[in-house]
């Protein structure tokens, strides 16, 4: 099914179709390899009778929508207080070392994007690392080489 047709289904869930914009953007992002290029915003706009500018305004408000290309695997380390107290910075640095990139950037081969994020709601299981939005709990710096190896495989 085309993105447009899937969005038409989504909008039926809501009393007013504008409510479908978040799910529609999420869908478009998945279809476009993890980010929202201008065409994706145009598609969503077309399907929901909005303007591309409006869709950009929405997308740019939310952290989970990306307006730049991402690596094939996105690694995000929570660095909010509870995780930070439990060694999140060491985890970030371990990923930087293993991946050879600075947090906030994407590896040259496009394989990985590494970043820090605000509280992921797993403070009791620190450090929380989201790999493509799937949470790994109680990650320590020492676990990082293994994780990266697994992800590279």
């Amino acid at each position, binding site marked *: 099914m085309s993105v447009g047709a899937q969005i038409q289904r989504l909008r039926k869930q809501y009393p007013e179709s504008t409510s479908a914009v978040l799910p529609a953007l999420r869908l478009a992002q998945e279809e476009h390899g993890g980010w929202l290029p*201008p065409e994706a*915003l145009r598609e969503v706009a077309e399907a929901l009778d*909005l*303007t*591309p*500018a*409006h869709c*950009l*305004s929405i997308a*740019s*408000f*939310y952290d989970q929508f990306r307006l730049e290309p991402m690596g094939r695997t996105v690694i995000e380390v929570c660095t909010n207080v509870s995780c930070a107290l439990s060694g999140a910075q060491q985890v970030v640095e371990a990923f930087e070392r293993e991946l050879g990139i600075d947090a906030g950037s994407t590896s040259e081969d496009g394989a990985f994007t590494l970043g820090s994020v605000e509280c992921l709601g797993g403070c009791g299981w620190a450090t929380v690392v989201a790999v493509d939005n799937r949470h790994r709990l109680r990650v320590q710096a020492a676990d990082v080489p293994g994780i990266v190896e697994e992800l590279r495989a």
Partner: protein
Amino acid sequence: MSELVAVTIDDRPVEVPKGTGLVEAAQAAGVEIPVFCYEPRLGPPVGACRMCLIEIEGMPKLQAGCTLTATDGMVIHTAATSAKAAEGQEATLEFILVNHPLDCPVCDKGGECPLQDLAFRYGPGNTRMTLPKLTVDKPIPVSPLIALDRERCILCYRCTRFSEDVAEDGQLIARNRGARTEIATFEDEAYRSPFSGNVIELCPVGALTSTLYRFAARPWDIQNVPTICTACPVGCNVSATIREGKVKRILSRNHPEIDRGWLCDKGRFSYPHLRAEDRITTPLRRGKKGLEEITWDDALDSAEEMLRNAGGAIVTALSGSETTEIAYALGRLLRGGHGAHSAVMPEATSTALEAFHLPLSAIGDAEIIVVVGDDPVVERAPIVDLWIKEARRHGAEIVVCSPAGDLATEPGGAAARCQELATPRDALGKKLRAAERAVLIWSGPGGGGGARLAELAHELGLEEKAGSGAFHLPATANALGAAAAWAASADADEANPEPIELLIVSGDEAAADPSVRALAEEAKRVIVLTMFHELAAGWADLILPSTAALERDGTTMNLEGRVQRLRRAVPPPCPDELAWIAKLAARFDVELASEAPGVFEELAGHLFRDLALDDLGLHAPLPARQTYETPAPSSSLPAASPAASLETEDGALRLQRFRALFSGPAVERVAQLDFQRPDAEVELATAEAERRGITSGDAVFVRSNGTSVELRARVNRKLIEGVARIADEHASDLHAVVEVVKA
């Protein structure tokens, strides 16, 4: 009258209607609550900027005054009487100024900037912000008309709210979140909306500025002249900013019943045409070596001679852009002096709608609005489109009966649609009858200048209901006034001279009109009154330079039937029409005043029941409703036969042309408006496009009888089948039936 409540503001008691906003209530008490984001015309308050913090007794926290309404017994303290409120205000100002550059001396807003004023009055005087400010590239173009300086922006969201909630164009947006929020367009594309310029006036700082006005003047060496826009029949109230005898910008001058302070970009930005390169200021006469400049005395001699030689076989083509006075003066000269009663009017007009007079603002309060006619309202009368949008936001039902409307209607089918609506069983007609506030609008050609619509309105009983009414949207600014003045200038029937000895073409619209050009080929001699060389050079025998609306004194009558006063903003570079018409008239023993007030006085007796110019004031009133008179059976109203269905061959489409708002001689002379002109495209119904294997964006040929134009296709889901829709300026010489093929 709604219930009154008593509130006390800074120890001053005041009574205001219940529900009055505190900002207005304070105003009534003579107290100012300073605001930035608050702007009632943009919809409900948002409480974003926090400039309006006040203390209300009984509430522990400071409140955003702009978001609250007066309730009985409320006791309010602004900064003037509350230390807490003063601290709140100072806090907000300090935060606003934290990232604001100190470039007031080079800012176009300097001297008329609300932020500058408030900082001066309430500000801390010095900054405690010693850390790096947020800095960005500046200024950047938001369009060829508007520059954006993001550093100056205080994120009041007025501009984006206008774009989203008033113009509903969804083009100008806020991007990102928190401190990184910024005003932007999609992919840095131009902000293209008929109303874009309003954001310049809405911006309370120098963040959004006009590229045409940039560095053009400082507020203290300018003068603002109140006048009326003549770019369309709405007649928005405007001020022209003048410096050293030149128009520097056009601002709105809020007439709450007409425009509410909004302007379209055509009205706001086309003033540079006054100084177009091909503007003519000296009369030209065709001689042996083509057109030659001559003196005004020679020009009047020539005109006199041509008039005398024509022996009354004269036809006058009017533009609908003349002031009522000019049209009247021409009528007196030609009809009174020469018996030349034959005129080509820019369009049909009718007085039948006078029974349904309503201020435009009432559209915003309507329950149901039915629009008939081929043309989109925004292309004919843009502000009317804003009023309709407002009505929709308030929950009104809007039904557009047009080839691309909600109720698909064949081109030319408006009259038939009206007849349907008038039948007792028609569902939509029933709703119109039942509604307290129903509005009818005719937007397009045909229909006898509104007579057909008046008939329907009468049938539906709208003249009985104070909130109901009907509007015809003429194609020109003063069609009503010009037609009425011409009619009033003499009392004789029109005769069609054959052959035409002399054709007089008054104004640029008539000069640009192909049918007038065709008439010129028949005429022996042609006099053209125009601003621009190009419009008349090929075919006129005598060209008399004309003045622009901004250079004129006089009146116009807008689509509501309201008479409004034009005031001369700048001196014209050539004699005023009324002055030389009076001189010429004198040569034929016709006595005419040479200034607008004098002419008005005379014509008002015929037309306006002795209305005095002073009665119009700065905000002219709407004349009272007249009783509806059923037209005589022999009236010239065109038959409401279903749209004359053209015999189309298989695969052929009917061409539907429309005159875009951004077109015409003035727009064509302002390069910055080019991006607003209609795209070179042809609109097709989904099915028609599919049949031809065309998708949006494809290059296509549109052909008829040997003419072919290449355009881009755009699929319009709402357009009916069998039609190809093209803006006039791209339809060139195409005939009524075309075929469309993929290029």
